[in-house]
């Protein structure tokens, strides 16, 4: 199977084939890598490549897989060829829409932008308070605020839509 794995801006095509129990042949670009991979705990893999040991903890949410290795978090998006083709279509359709939602229940402290406003990449757009801490959410890319779904003082649920940026 082939997977399109993207990490931040980069995307690589990764070929995965089984080569025995817990053994895999991985192809990245034109290199082939033999990988010994055991799922040793619920979300933890023990990996041996060229006799080097790695431990990787995962947070999986559909195709978003966050991999934690030696204290560094690698937020991946892993799509098989079918899903990649679908995502190309929908990306084209959505034209780079960006939905900002609440990661956990909290209270809207301040909305920093208005509908129609142009925002830059990394610009703060909304402040949410949860567990007595305030957190500023930023726009991932430059664009225009299409819609603001909440107002200051609102109590929001985890996963609730906050803003849409185009």
């Amino acid at each position, binding site marked *: 199977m082939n*997977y399109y794995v993207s990490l931040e801006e980069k995307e690589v095509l990764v070929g*995965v084939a089984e080569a025995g129990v817990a053994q895999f042949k*991985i192809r*990245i670009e034109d290199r082939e890598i033999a990988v010994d991979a055991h799922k040793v705990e619920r979300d*933890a893999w023990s990996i041996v490549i060229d006799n080097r040991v790695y431990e990787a*903890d*995962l947070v999986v949410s559909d195709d978003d897989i966050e991999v934690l290795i030696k*204290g560094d978090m690698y937020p991946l998006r892993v799509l098989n060829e079918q899903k990649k083709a679908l995502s190309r279509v929908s990306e084209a359709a959505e034209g780079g829409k960006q939905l900002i939602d609440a*990661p956990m229940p909290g209270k809207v402290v301040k909305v920093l932008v208005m509908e129609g406003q142009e925002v830059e990449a990394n610009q703060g757009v909304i402040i949410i308070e*949860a567990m007595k801490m305030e957190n500023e959410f930023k726009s991932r890319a430059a664009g225009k605020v299409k819609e603001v779904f909440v107002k200051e003082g609102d109590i929001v649920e985890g996963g609730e839509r906050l803003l849409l940026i185009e």
Partner: protein
Amino acid sequence: MFSKILVANRGEIAVRVIRACREMGIESIAVYSDVDRHALHVRYADYAYRIGPPQASESYLNIDKLLEIARMSGAEAIHPGYGFLAENPDFARRLKDEGIKLIGPPPEAMRVMGSKTLARQTVSAAGVPVVPGTKESIETEEEVLRVAREVGYPVMLKAAAGGGGKGLRLVNEESEMRSAIRMARSEAKSSFGDDSMYIEKYIERPRHIEIQVLADQQGNTIHLFERECSIQRRHQKVIEESPSVFVTDEIRKEMGAVAVAAAKAVDYEGAGTVEFLMDKEKNFYFLEMNTRLQVEHPVTEMVTGIDIVKEQIKIAAGEPLRFKQEEIKQVGHAIECRIYAEDPDKNFFPCPGLIETLRIPGGPGVRDDSGVFEGFEIPIHYDPMISKLVVWGKDRQEAILRMGRALSEYIITGVKTTVPFHIRVMNNRHFIEGDFDTNFIDQVFLKEEQERIPENSEVAIIVGAIEQFIREKSESLKSDEVREGEGISLWKSSFRPGFGRRF
């Protein structure tokens, strides 16, 4: 000695106190809110009483209910832990009236140290150095200039009615002063309707150093040396250590004596912490006194060998301290990392939730003070601290390497935690060299981290692809079997003992 102690707290600190009780042969009484019935502090206690709904105001802060339970359960003393009611003089007074011993200082010491201005006046009178400046408002610009010259630039110009950063101005030199006063006054006027100002010396890039004290009812007061707590995010300590690399033996002695003087100035009893800011020239200034057990007390325990919680209990029971100042030694080096359910890559945003996997590090020199277990749901109602990981090493270098080793063994899934953040701090050159102050995380570390390129992205990509491959494979196997009508038998097999634990 007491035979029954009520622990008016939850989480790791309640577990800490209950463990001490058990090791002293004292029965412990836990209280729990509706979301905490499963919590470790309940499971480890001898007795447990429901205290109310999840909100702290209706449970762990409910003085009436606590007193009712204390009476009902026959508790002779109450340990308040930290937070919640630990520094509430009203609670202390109510307990006194009821004849139940609070394991902590007398209400009056709590009251004085709880007020910034009263505390500053009281300890200053006892010879404790405070940040130079005025506490009363200054009327004229000339007066402001005179005082500023006296304490030396840079100074902070502060609105007397101020708060939240409003009416606050850092003034680096005299030439900036006049315009700063005007702007600060107008800001203060519009924000608080009061434009009176006072001045304090501005401590540039301070380090946070604190002294642990113990005072018995017989009037013996000693200190257990310093802790350095300069590694903070959002002005909250996240890593503490003892000793401080920055403090010399001479200053250590001086700070210890000053902290003891501060405690004596309020007839202190029990364990307390005198916090100081220290400038680059190693001048130190009283910040405040915490009249309770401190989160970071374990680092002191590990270098002195003294169990601070047991000492608190003994002192409350009227026992005199069994050791003299000169018998207490700092041996080796201890570091504590606070493990929070927070996302360090998203500005430390809280991430409460269900702990799906938990593997705690072990081996030599490692102590884990935790309030959670695998399968526990971290409630959203309280502080998101999961545990305190503490290590001891023969010196700071060994302690840092050991902490790095222990953190690499720590597995928590289900919630994001600060474990990866701590790993990176342990690898940071400035931290290793002891070159930091209270602004380190926000101003130095996070910037350096943004520029660092993680080493294992290829391995991560490989794991991600394999995970997806295996998931798709098992999904397709499952749907095949369902299609063949074997769903029910497979479903039953999922209740086999051990299922879900083998991979």
